[in-house]
């Protein structure tokens, strides 16, 4: 593969890729697939009618990884990509997605990624998605991910969603439907700065008996940035749902947290926690007594919080 310096930087930031990864992969750069590998158990195919991929993971596939990073390094590129994952019974796989935009031009670059996961009985998927933007152009770096997760009986999904730097505008939608004994764990990490805007909207339906959802979002809003966190958990059965939104506010930033719990039976146990505030002064003070300057203390607290 012939990659520019910026493209390499993106792959490294969003998927920790320094060389060709093990397992199955597809690299999408500026709207084109520039490298792909399927394996005996994981089949990656180009979609016929839309832009995107169909990824089939055979039943009982264990411990394999799929990397599908996306990089955009030209200004003015706007794309919508549909990726569907079919994860067979009893499989246990890790999928590393992620998208980075380098924009040094005047026009906006936009990536709308629509990812759907069909997770069969007792299968397990870990999905890691990092977003990253850089480049001095006035053109926006815009990422709008939609993630839909359909969990069959006893299936499990763990989502790690991270956006730490450089994305100007994001609308993230995450939807999940769970059958009996299914489980979803979501860990979101978000940092916005400048005039960035980030919206994260969750809709989780606990339809199955003993289904479980655990949603934890930690975010930091700096400068004049603006964040909205909206989580709806619907309990339609004997189930447990927990969502937590923890945000640190700095400068002139704003964070709006809108929790919603819809319990449709008394057997549903749903909890929401939200805490928004500035960095606790006692934390700064403690680190200063350990010899850190206020700035150093602040960055330690932020880095820890977003880990």
């Amino acid at each position, binding site marked *: 593969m012939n990659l520019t310096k910026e493209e390499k930087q993106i792959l490294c930031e969003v998927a920790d890729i320094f060389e060709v990864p093990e397992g199955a992969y597809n690299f999408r750069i500026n709207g084109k697939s520039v490298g792909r590998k399927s394996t005996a158990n994981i089949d990656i195919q180009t979609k016929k009618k839309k832009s995107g991929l169909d990824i089939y993971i055979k039943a009982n596939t264990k411990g394999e990884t799929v990397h599908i990073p996306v990089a955009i390094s030209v200004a003015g590129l706007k794309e919508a990509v549909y990726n569907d994952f079919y994860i067979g019974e009893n499989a246990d796989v890790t999928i590393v997605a992620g998208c980075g935009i380098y924009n040094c031009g005047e026009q906006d670059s936009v990536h709308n990624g629509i990812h759907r996961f069909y997770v069969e009985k007792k299968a397990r998927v870990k999905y890691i998605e990092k977003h990253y933007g850089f480049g001095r152009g006035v053109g926006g770096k815009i990422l709008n991910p939609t993630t839909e997760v359909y969990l069959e009986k006893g299936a499990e999904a763990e989502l790690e969603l991270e956006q730490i730097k450089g994305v100007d505008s994001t609308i993230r939608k995450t939807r999940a439907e769970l059958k009996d004994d299914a489980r979803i764990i979501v860990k979101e990490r978000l940092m916005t700065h400048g005039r960035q805007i980030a919206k994260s909207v969750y809709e989780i339906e606990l339809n199955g008996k003993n289904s479980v959802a655990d949603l934890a979002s930690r975010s930091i809003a700096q400068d004049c940035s603006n964040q909205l966190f909206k989580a709806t958990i619907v309990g339609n059965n004997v189930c447990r749902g927990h969502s937590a939104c923890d945000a640190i506010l700095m400068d002139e930033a704003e964070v709006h947290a809108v929790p919603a719990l819809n319990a449709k039976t008394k057997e549903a146990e749903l909890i929401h926690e939200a805490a928004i505030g500035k960095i606790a002064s*006692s934390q700064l003070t*403690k680190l200063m*007594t*350990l*010899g850190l300057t206020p700035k150093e203390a602040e960055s*330690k607290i932020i880095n*820890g919080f977003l880990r």
Partner: protein
Amino acid sequence: MLELVNISFGGFNGRVKNKILDGISLKFERGSFTVITGSNGSGKSSLAEVIVGIKKASSGQIIFDKTDITDKTITDRAKEGIAFSFQQPVKFKGVTVYDLLNISNGALMSETEAGRYLKKVGLEPENYLFREVDEKLSGGELKRIEIASVLARNAKLIIFDEPEAGIDIWSFEKLTSIFKKLKAEGRTLIVISHQEKIFKIADEIIMLEGGKVTARGTFKKVLLAAGEATK
């Protein structure tokens, strides 16, 4: 090594301005071990916080190692060699015990090296080094980690604010031996405490009431003075 000259500190108690520290002058010699005691609200923590720089004295002067540190920041005082173990340990989301010990030490330690500070307070490194310093730790665990984080600074002057609070008997024994060791290393210790066992191993006791020093001397002398006062 530390001299407080006529230190006062005022605060607002409800709507009334009151003197929390009222003209305190004290000298602490290098290598000395002093206990500060007194009833709740007498100003012990406030005095410690004024020395560390967390609270700013409304008047008076603080001399540390022959330099006037009255206007220095918390960070500068820490760098000069003053360490402080908080009465209420501070919790952090996402910061591990190992991180905290490294920050405190000022250099990246090996896990074994960092683990040594945990062993000193009776915590098994393998169980605690990579835990986060957050609300999942018990009160006593947090307090011990707080003490370990202060030990990792290897400071010249160490102030402990009620180190015994919430700590079980076994660890308490450990604590007294830590103080003896620190003293043997030539460090200067100021320990705020209500514990007779700690009074007994100190060189001197200072009694604080209403923001004023009401007695100072050996354990016996101060006990006697306190007895006189309550007659």
